[in-house]
């Protein structure tokens, strides 16, 4: 097990931006196959990310939105929002979309060796990239993720990032509030509504309950073209090829089968109560009554 490197809570100021008046936010955005189009697998059972239409994961737009709102609320501070994506060449589109929405910088980690990575390897690459962004621009105070990716829907990468970076995890927020380096969120957990608190730096994930994400404006789209975009390889992050990718994944998809199409059901049109009788008849025939 890794030794605990986390400083005591009272000691956090040296981990915040270089000056008290700066704040660094990294937003993790994933490039996913479009859920409204056909999604498929490759021959090696990995998700086809290249042969289909892809886009910035819908649920990560909420993460970008929350980062931008925070930047707007903290107008008297120098807040930098960096969008980070690990994915194939095409995935740069996800970073670009985040820049168009208003993020300041983009970082795209891409390397052939990453293809087929599982959660474990993906979280490793993200964690190393966050450390590199921190070394270059000042350590991240806030790492914002979506609640889940729309392809894998694991909802596990934020927890893994917190574990790897040894930071508090504040996940599944429906409302986010910050004051200085304090963060408070509201969230719906399994059986209750909770208020959670932590001190930055933290890993945060947000749900679609946080509020609509903005559309890129024409001005935003033009401005994005001039924003800094960095492309990093595994070598840039000091990760060996045998730490990531399909061949070393700690879990393996053995087989993928398209679900057989549902056999067309019986559809009746209600006329003067006939629908209700037919419905009850169907439920009885299936022993639900």
């Amino acid at each position: 097990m890794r030794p605990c490197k986390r400083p005591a809570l009272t000691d956090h100021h040296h981990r915040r931006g270089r000056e008290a008046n700066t704040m660094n936010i990294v937003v993790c955005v994933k490039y996913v196959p479009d859920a409204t189009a056909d999604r498929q697998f490759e021959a090696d059972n990995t998700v086809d990310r290249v042969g289909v239409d892809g886009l910035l994961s819908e649920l990560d737009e909420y993460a970008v939105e929350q980062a931008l709102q925070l930047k707007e609320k903290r107008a008297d501070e120098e807040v930098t929002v960096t969008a980070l994506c690990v994915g194939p060449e095409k995935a740069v589109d996800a970073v670009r979309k985040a820049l168009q929405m208003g993020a300041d910088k983009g970082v795209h980690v891409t390397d052939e060796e990453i293809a087929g990575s599982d959660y474990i390897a993906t979280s490793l690459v993200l964690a190393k990239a966050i450390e590199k962004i921190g070394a270059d621009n000042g350590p991240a105070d806030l790492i914002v993720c979506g609640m889940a990716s729309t392809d894998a829907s694991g909802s596990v990468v934020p927890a893994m990032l917190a574990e790897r970076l040894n930071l508090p995890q504040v996940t599944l927020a429906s409302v986010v509030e910050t004051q200085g380096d304090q963060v408070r969120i509201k969230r719906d957990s399994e059986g209750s509504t909770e208020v959670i608190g932590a001190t930055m730096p933290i890993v945060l994930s947000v749900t679609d309950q946080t509020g609509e994400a903005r559309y890129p404006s024409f001005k935003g789209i033009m401005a994005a073209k001039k924003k800094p975009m960095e492309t990093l390889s595994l070598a840039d992050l000091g990760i060996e090829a045998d730490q990531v990718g399909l061949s070393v994944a700690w879990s393996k998809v053995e087989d993928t089968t398209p679900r057989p199409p549902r056999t067309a059901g019986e559809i009746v049109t209600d006329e003067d109560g006939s629908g209700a009788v037919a419905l009850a008849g169907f439920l009885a025939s299936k022993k639900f009554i």
Partner: protein
Amino acid sequence: MSEVLVVIDHVDGEVKKPTYELLTIARRLGEPSAVFFGAPDKADGVVEKAKAYGAEKVYVIDDAELKGYLVAPKAEAMAQLAQQSSLSAILFPSTFEGKEVAARLAIKIESGLITDAVDVQAGDGGAPVTTQSVFAGSYTVTATVTRGTPIITVKPNSAAPEETAGAGTVEAFTPTISDAARTTQIIASQPRAATGRPELTEADIVVSCVRGTGGNFDPIEKFADSLGAAVGASRAAVDSGWMPHSYQVGQTGKTVSPQLYVANGISGAIQHRAGMQTSKTIVAVNKDNEAPIFELVDFGVVGDLHSVLPAATEEITKRKG
């Protein structure tokens, strides 16, 4: 046979049905040991239940020092427990908490993780082979873990719970929790009011509705109650403030996989489908005969739910006699 750890899903000692499903699955893979995080005075009742579903051992972890914090302490405790013996798998309920504890544990003990399994069987040599339903239910995927102790989170309704007496030997376990794991504090927690209906994710029948009902849920609730069903909702109903978010079915709500799903006035958007497409039987009532939901149904009624549902409720009550 080596041990399989099953993390008990419970609220204040009330064990939830997925726990029994996990214990049933665990028996296919090895010797089930249940793990109870909770108050020691609730342990006796929980142990009895775990025992009745085949737990040979029950580790009791007093959560007094853990429960005020989010997931990290539980992950530390599980990692320490996992180091005690050689395990053939660790099973968690696929709740958000279950998944997050599993995620951190996977990194700590360097083991592969599979989330949201809808079935787990013993494969060659007894190692678990999982089945997942992905891409909003349009693909079925089987997978195995290739490194470490397989950590698997399992969705509700993935197995029929089978009772069988286990030894149920109690072992108190006291983890050492670091300060670093206690940095995310639960400041307040407001339990949701009980509805008196079955839990959405565990129910055999789910009846869902939408804003089409104009905020009047009477016909839906009466219909649901006539079937003994849980009530769900689409995001449209939740967004308009008529239903709490905990009722939402779909990509960003709950995933349900009941025997019967009845969608009333729900169009069938991909995000909604993602949460209900694996239901065994699907029924819809919708006044638009072109609503995409009809592509999924085993039985559909084109009609106004305000007239169809009350009449159906009456008919069901009559048939039940």
